[in-house]
């Protein structure tokens, strides 16, 4: 019998094109997502060297970082943003790459568009010049973020030169308690292993609590693999995966779909496969999680307290707690559910899918956003927006006082007009709470959509289960 393999081993081995003399591997790339921020210099590189895009049909482009989320009919006001988006459109056209413009209802955040269109499938290698490409790992695809030089390499050769990472297994055992979401699971993971815990590894998420997640939830977990330091995170495909893909525009059809299902299911990690590192977390120990500081590992449960640097023995850690407290404008030992907020951002490639919006609508229904709080909801794609409106969620949001907007990355990284003012505090469903991430001097607390919605209603961080 052959050696048992992890899904990562299997995908890696099935994509080896050649091995270089120095021991690196030329790995085939099945699919390439392209957005406006990290691609212009790559296309320029191709032009300068007279190279062509090898497989335009394996490449999909859309603008997401710079697009406005209101008054779209007026176009993009910022001239630099406008130029970057127009440059992508021109590069796509010149190279025969499918481009979804702002006016196409399928436009949205690349990591939401790929899965929606069936562009993302199990067993594939997928790259994008964006660290949250790890999202696609939810399908059992090996997906990771790359820099612009590698975007150019992929465009020109449909391969990348890689060294294999190590295997890490993160097992979430048992069932989560009611109201605990995929976001809480992944924040609890980062809290445990730290932002460098996954460096050098590809993480595979396993266990009952992961199996029980919808595809949307699995995408939330895999999305933040990068915040745990891992380039890629994945979940072995199962029935949930296959059912999500059935009928998607780019998914195989008819009999071929059944062939594909058999192939996809064969990718699951084998019993007894070797992992270089194994981490176990009990699902029933997780309650809603939030971040208090400026690193995604600064996580605390909603019934917890802001840490006290005096309790930290390690000098580096103590210094970074002090720096974070100062930046965040928080006092040590205060209960986190007393932290007042000014803004709420619901959206991003972490939590901008239909399931997230449905969860928010449950909280918002019949309630009102606290006076003085501005709470925006930014769907992850035009199709998410359309579906939400079909279900009447938009009416619930607007009635409750939320600002219902057009799709894009928006205030997750504030490259468009949506940003925090200095010292403004935000309850956010995004993935990074770095200094200045949502606007210079802005203070970000990461949490689930339910928790962000509850913060909007109460005007402070709060356990949504107490509403």
């Amino acid at each position, binding site marked *: 019998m052959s050696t048992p393999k992890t899904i990562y081993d299997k995908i890696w081995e099935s994509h080896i094109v050649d091995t270089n003399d120095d021991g690196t591997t030329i790995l085939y790339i099945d699919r390439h997502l392209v957005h406006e921020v990290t691609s212009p210099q790559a296309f320029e590189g191709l032009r300068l060297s007279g190279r062509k895009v090898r497989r335009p049909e394996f490449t999909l482009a859309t603008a997401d970082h710079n697009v406005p989320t209101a008054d779209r009919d007026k176009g993009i006001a910022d001239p630099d943003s406008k130029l*970057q988006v127009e440059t992508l459109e021109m590069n796509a056209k010149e190279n025969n790459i499918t481009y979804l413009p702002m006016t196409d209802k399928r436009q949205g955040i690349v990591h939401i568009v790929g899965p929606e269109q069936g562009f993302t499938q199990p067993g594939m290698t997928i790259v994008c010049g964006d660290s949250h490409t790890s999202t696609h790992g939810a399908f059992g695809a090996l997906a990771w973020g790359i820099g612009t030089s590698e975007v150019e390499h992929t465009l020109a050769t449909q391969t990348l030169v890689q060294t294999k990472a190590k295997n890490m297994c993160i097992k979430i055992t048992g069932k989560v308690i009611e109201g605990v979401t995929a976001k809480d699971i992944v924040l609890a993971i980062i809290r445990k292993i730290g932002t460098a815990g996954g460096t050098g590894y590809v993480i595979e998420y396993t266990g009952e609590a992961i199996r029980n997640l919808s595809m949307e939830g699995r995408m939330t977990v895999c999305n933040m693999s990068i915040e745990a330091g891992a380039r890629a995170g994945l979940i072995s495909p199962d029935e949930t995966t296959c059912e999500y893909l059935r009928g998607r525009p780019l998914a195989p059809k008819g009999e071929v779909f059944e062939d594909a299902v058999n192939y996809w299911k064969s990718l699951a990690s084998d019993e007894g496969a070797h992992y270089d590192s194994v981490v176990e977390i009990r699902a029933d120990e997780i309650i809603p999680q939030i971040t208090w500081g400026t690193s995604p590992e600064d996580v605390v449960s909603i019934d917890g307290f802001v840490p006290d640097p005096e309790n930290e023995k390690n000098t580096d850690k103590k210094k970074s707690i002090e720096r974070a407290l100062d930046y965040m404008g928080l006092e040590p030992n205060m209960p986190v559910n007393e932290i007042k907020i000014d803004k709420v951002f619901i959206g991003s490639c972490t939590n901008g899918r239909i399931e997230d919006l449905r969860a928010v609508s449950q909280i918002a229904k019949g309630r009102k956003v606290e006076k003085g709080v501005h709470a925006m909801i930014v769907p992850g794609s035009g199709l998410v927006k359309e579906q939400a409106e079909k279900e009447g969620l938009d009416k619930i949001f607007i009635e409750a006082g939320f600002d219902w907007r057009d799709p894009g990355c928006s205030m997750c990284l504030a490259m468009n007009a949506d940003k925090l003012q200095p010292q403004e505090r935000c309850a956010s469903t995004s993935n990074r709470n770095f200094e200045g991430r949502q606007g210079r001097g802005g203070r970000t607390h990461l949490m689930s959509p339910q928790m962000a919605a509850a913060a909007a209603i109460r005007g402070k961080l709060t356990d949504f289960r107490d509403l």
Partner: protein
Amino acid sequence: MEKFNKLSGHAIPLRITNVDTDMIIPKQFLKTIKRTGLGEFLFYELRYDQDGNKISSFALNQEQYKDASILIAGKNFGCGSSREHAPWSIADYGIKCIIAPSYADIFYNNCFKNGILPIILDEATVSRLQDSSDSILNFNIDLEKQNITFLENNEKKEISFEIDPAKKKCLLEGLDDIGLTLNKVASIGHFEEGQENEIPWLYGNKLK
């Protein structure tokens, strides 16, 4: 691609752990369609206050580090986004070597594409070098020999470092890795034929 072999220069100590790419180059500077000219925005929000005035306590603004070409940083340097604007801004500023206990994966990889040598040393050594960076006039970095040499209290010191041989070669020779891969274009074509036979649904399906 830029080569890296030897470097002699001053070092800037940056005593912050988990320096993320948003800190290295904030998003408002990512709207460029060029690779060049980002050096003046490196660490922008640490270097300048909200009115655009220099923050004098920040190392990059201090006279003694004016011509530094080495950065000595805290662990998990370069975490966060995949933006290659981070190494572009570092190289454009004039820093060609970083010394830190660890790096985030994508950033580390991006350095090699831009002629920057990211050296990994243990935390205690990095901390010691940060403390003595003011008194050491020149760090001599030799990639071929994999060592850092310097004079400290008139004594010659040497610290060696490890680096992956493939990555070392790539920096020493400044190779065009796209060109190298394209030399194997026949293997790529062969792979595609095999894959199309085995997984035919991956081929011939394009979004309209």
